[in-house]
């Protein structure tokens, strides 16, 4: 299992560097008012880049034939892809913290929103939601055929967030909105964080089961 994740890191040293540069770019161009959302955006982006680059390299070399000829179960191949998300997110968080630190040390005239636990939770939720939708498609179709979906999903992901919120705001009664707001107000940050992490976990579990059932039927 660990060697499969290690493989994902090894085959994309360059992509990790690109991901790092993207995070710098985000931190520099996005205004401070985005707050903790900026970390979520950065994490979804780095996961997007790294999932795309590892899958592209796998399709290019047809390495599914290699992996499936080795004594590795398809279950572990799928699971490794999901566990890689944690590794990629950790790389993203560390990169963000380094940038934050460097900005402070060299006294850059920009305000970098510091990494907070809240930001990490939102980030992991966004990464889980995005990849929870995409990975089953990847395992069903392979990267080349699902590349366009991945790209579209990425660009609609942020655009649609505010749309979804407005959609519900317009259609829900003010009382219902108030109830939801009240629900969150009554909960502590810790409770909300745990709830979000719980939802992320369940989402990924469902997504993993779907991916596995697709991948078990794939032919190479």
């Amino acid at each position, binding site marked *: 299992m660990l060697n499969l994740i290690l493989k994902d890191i090894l085959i994309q040293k360059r992509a990790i560097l690109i991901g790092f540069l993207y995070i710098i770019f985000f931190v520099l161009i996005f205004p401070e008012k985005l707050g903790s959302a900026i970390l979520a955006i950065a994490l979804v982006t780095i996961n997007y880049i790294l999932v795309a680059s590892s899958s592209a*390299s796998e399709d290019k070399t047809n390495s599914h034939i290699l992996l499936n000829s080795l004594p590795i179960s398809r279950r572990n191949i799928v699971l490794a892809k999901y566990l890689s998300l944690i590794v990629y997110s950790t790389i993203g968080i560390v990169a963000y913290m380094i940038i934050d630190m460097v900005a402070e040390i060299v006294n850059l005239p920009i305000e970098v929103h510091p990494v907070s636990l809240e930001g990490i939770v939102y980030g992991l939720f966004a990464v889980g939601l995005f990849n929870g939708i995409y990975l089953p498609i990847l395992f069903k179709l392979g990267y080349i055929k699902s590349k366009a979906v991945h790209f579209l999903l990425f660009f609609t992901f942020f655009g649609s967030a505010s749309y979804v919120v407005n959609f519900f705001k317009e259609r829900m009664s003010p009382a219902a909105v108030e109830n939801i707001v009240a629900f969150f107000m009554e909960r502590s940050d810790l409770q909300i964080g745990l709830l979000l992490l719980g939802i992320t976990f369940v989402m990924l579990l469902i997504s993993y089961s779907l991916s596995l059932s697709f991948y078990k039927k794939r032919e190479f």
Partner: protein
Amino acid sequence: MSAILEIKNLRKEFKGFTLKDISFSLERGFIMGFIGPNGAGKSTTIKLIMNLLKKDGGEIKVFGLDNIKHEQEIKNRIGFVFDESYFYEELTIQEMKGIIAPVYKNWSDQAFAKYLKEFDLPPRKKIKALSKGMKMKFSLAIALSHEAELLILDEPTSGLDPLIRSELLDILSSLIQDENKGIFFSTHITSDLDKIADYITLIHNGEIVFSSAKDDILDNYGIVKGDRSLLDKEMRKDFIGIKETSFGFEGLVSDKDKIRRLYKDRVVIEKPSLEDVMLYYTRRDFNA
């Protein structure tokens, strides 16, 4: 002795091609050549054995075990070399080994280091910088470093120069001295098998034409040459394929002794090569 590889009524349907309920088996201690023209079903059969394709019917047993139920155990004991390299091109030999080694129960770093040296493979070289022959040798080094009992080779020699091909054949013949192992070797370059194969299985259009001991084939089959005036309906029945020219005919028979008894010195009978046998069976314009 039990079969190391046993295929019974194996079926796989694609659009435009069907592997038609094929059966054959390979005993321990032997090399089987799996021959046939391109598109005959060789790679499909191998992919079915490796569970890269899902079969539509039949049975595949490796080491006496069902290839799906005991997939992991079987793959731990199989070494494979495919016609193309499926390694991550960006990685070095050493890095790729680092990923593959932990998945095998019986991996030996000493054996791997020994083969790298023997095959002249530089561990720090990236896979994309290796020649086709070196990539094949790297696959072979991996296949030989985890005590594989069954080697499955899918067109390992295609596109390689004669020197590397002959090196590979030498390695395989020394390997099979251990009578507990088996080698299943698909190729359309039949001259590779003339020296080393014990059994030959010929596949054509998704069907097994024959699966027999190589010596039986080479001893019993014959290339018969003679004058066209001899070639009547009765005689044609004995031929697998015939090539006719204005001077005479040349054809393949499976029982050369019968032809010798019938036609004595009116015909010339020669020993066929495996290539002759394959061509006469598979070329449509050679139909008797």
